[in-house]
């Protein structure tokens, strides 16, 4: 069930209506939990057991950590949580990848191997909800959170449907305190802000991103057939598609949660206006960056132990981040490119990159991201190599052309992106008087619907 589908509208209307009609906080939470499980069950009922199991393990681990009398016991409970969550993630997401990679390595070394891969279905959203459950155990271990007495609270935190399958990744310390306080419409809901956020996300996904997808898919399906200009166009459009798709989903998630009285953290902040790759990562998929910063970068030592260790820590974070996105070497290379760029910006010679004039800085950041996304989007390293070679003039006899009119769409996007951020258009829209807002929302929605793509594509981040 996608946010942009008509059936989701009916689903949410029901959830919203019943949620605010119920009087007791416990009833509301139970209702939201049931709705969240139904939402996930619309994809695959069988895989609900994984979420339930993950929740149960962390509920026990949290209580175990808090109740342990020795450091060893605390570690053992944390190890249980880490093993269970990362074990699930590792098996479902990475088993085949590592098995294939090991087999490739063995063949390269001349050793006889057979195929070890399994027919595994990747559960939707597993990378997101395992990170959320992990944050619960880790925060209790670090003394930043008390374990929950209520299994219901933890289960709802793990499975809260607006952000269950593609984030934003909410840490336990951000969400669980909200569950402790009964939600009240007047105190916890900023309806106009939530509605503008949903409308913005819907526009990004259904009106913009889904129209870019066919051009991108056409070129990336057979990059060798397309000329240089077309490969540049596809790379540029994917650059936009990924942002529009993912930030669109995130905004809808934030807005929907907002209408239910819950605040989710912002996930994007005009990333294409960043003037360095380091700054870009403070604006792009902010919640993932914050998770890695809290639970990987800082525990590794952060930037406290000298330049070399800092560079190592940064590279580790970006490589793991790449692998988090997908079980393919293309994602590892994507992460490596960003890691190297961030490390380079910290070195004395590379620091010049962070002091470039604004137009050059924007060009530099967007080009780094654009080239890295060629790996992100390609099926294999070889395919990415073909696309890059065509982009850099090696198109040879390729004669196919993508729809060049889409360059105008790309140009319009960058102008719109800058205007929305610079003039705070969404914040302004949310602050108009209620009657004008009501009329405007109705008119804007009616104007938007005709441009919704009739070939809706799944959200790109669902695959992660």
């Amino acid at each position, binding site marked *: 069930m996608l946010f942009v589908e008509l059936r989701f509208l009916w689903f949410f209307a029901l959830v919203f209506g019943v949620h605010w009609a119920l009087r007791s906080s416990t009833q509301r939470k139970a209702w939201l939990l049931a709705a969240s499980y139904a939402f996930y069950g619309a994809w695959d009922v069988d895989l609900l057991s994984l979420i339930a199991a993950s929740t149960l393990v962390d509920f026990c681990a949290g209580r175990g950590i808090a109740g342990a009398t020795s450091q060893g016991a605390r570690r053992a409970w944390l190890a249980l949580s880490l093993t269970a969550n990362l074990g699930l993630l590792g098996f479902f997401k990475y088993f085949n990848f590592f098995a294939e990679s090991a087999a490739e390595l063995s063949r390269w070394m001349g050793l006889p191997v057979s195929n070890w891969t399994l027919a595994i279905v990747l559960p939707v959203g597993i990378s997101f909800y395992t990170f959320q459950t992990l944050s619960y155990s880790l925060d209790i271990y670090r003394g930043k959170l008390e374990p929950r007495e209520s299994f219901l609270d933890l289960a709802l935190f793990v499975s809260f449907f607006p952000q269950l399958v593609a984030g934003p990744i909410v840490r336990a310390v951000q969400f669980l305190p909200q569950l402790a306080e009964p939600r009240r419409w007047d105190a916890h809901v900023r309806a106009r802000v939530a509605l503008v956020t949903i409308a913005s996300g819907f526009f990004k996904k259904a009106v913009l991103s889904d129209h870019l997808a066919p051009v991108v898919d056409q070129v990336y399906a057979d990059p060798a057939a397309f000329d240089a200009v077309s490969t540049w166009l596809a790379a540029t459009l994917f650059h936009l598609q990924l942002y529009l798709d993912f930030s669109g989903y995130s905004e809808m998630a934030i807005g929907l949660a907002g209408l239910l009285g819950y605040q989710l953290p912002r996930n994007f902040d005009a990333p294409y206006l960043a003037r360095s790759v380091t700054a870009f990562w403070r604006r792009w998929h902010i919640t993932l960056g914050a998770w890695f910063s809290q639970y990987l970068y800082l525990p590794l030592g952060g930037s406290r132990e000298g330049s070399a260790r800092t560079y190592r820590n940064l590279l580790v974070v970006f490589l793991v981040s790449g692998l988090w996105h997908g079980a393919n070497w293309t994602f590892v290379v994507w992460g490596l490119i960003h890691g190297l760029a961030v490390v380079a910006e910290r070195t004395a010679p590379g620091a010049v990159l962070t002091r470039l004039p604004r137009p050059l800085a924007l060009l530099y950041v967007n080009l780094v991201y654009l080239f890295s996304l060629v790996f992100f989007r390609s099926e294999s390293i070889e395919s990415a190599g073909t696309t890059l070679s065509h982009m850099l003039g090696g198109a040879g006899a390729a004669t196919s052309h993508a729809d060049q009119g889409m360059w105008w769409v790309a140009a319009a996007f960058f102008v719109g992106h800058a205007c929305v951020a610079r003039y705070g258009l969404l914040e302004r829209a949310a602050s108009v008087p209620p009657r004008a807002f*009501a009329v405007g929302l109705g008119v804007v929605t009616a104007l938007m*619907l*005709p441009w919704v793509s009739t070939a809706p594509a799944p959200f790109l981040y669902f695959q992660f």
Partner: protein
Amino acid sequence: MVSRLALVLLSVASFAVTAWALGRLPSWPEDLGMRARWAWLAEHGADYDTLVVGSSATANGFVPAAFDAACSAEGLEVRSFNFGVEGMDPFEADHTLRVLLDSGLLPNLRYVLIEGNDWSPRIQYPDDERQLWRNERFVFLHDAEATQEALTWTRGHLEGDLRQRQLEQHLELAARHATNLGAGPSWLGSLRGTWSGAPTREQLAADHGFVALEELTDRPDVTERRERFLAGLEAYVQQIEAWRQRLDAEGRPASAPTPEYRAAVERQAQRLAAIGARGVYFTGTRTIQTPGLRGLAAEGALELLPFNDPAAFPALYAPEARFDREHLNREGATRWSGLLGRAFARLVSEED
């Protein structure tokens, strides 16, 4: 609370008014030459006084020039336009005719020829949601009146899961129609009068809506049909002979039509009478029985020119007149249109 409810209602009303206003824009579907014909009539509708609506049997079988010449030979001067579209059943043809009449694109209309068949507002691809979702023709069809008819028919004639599913799909299509969901590209295309594929402007200027199947060389499905027909010529001849024998044995049965079909025919007659036009029904050169249609003709509810009869029109069913089992080639189409023209002119002259 009242204030919040008022704001919600205000927002819904704003949406509804804007969607309604936008819905007045033409959004003719591009599918299979539909927009091409709309766009042509938007420019040249006043040139025609006779309109023909129907399925591919019409689109690829009715040659306006041959029809007009045959009418002229009988002393009836007409200028006809072929608004046949592949897959257009009587339910869709009824909607198309209604929208065309309401649009005022045919100010000089005198006659309408309507291809008759069973009345069955069923969704053609009930199990192919993506096809259904993308098909702007289905959405175009689902205005309030057509949706109401479809829901009534579905409740009365289907059962079980199929009925439930079709009801849901009709409602979803009606919701898309009412909210203009995804209609933007269709508006742009309609306003600009652009389309792709057949019929081209040149074909429309030369053939007034007729498209010969042998000219659709870029349609693999059409080419494949032709190849299948040629490979099974003997079976086709046997099929026609069996059909002829069946007609001889069973006759041409007439039965009571469904109430919905009867009501639709009455509505069509009223609409046409209101603008001073006259409707005549016909059946294409196909091996199908149309008992309901014959029943209506027997009652005098409509005038019918039937051609689904190889015994009466053997030349139209001869392999050399056919493109495939169901359709005529250009030569066969010209011959049929001439026969239809003569029969039509005589019918009109007798009545007048």
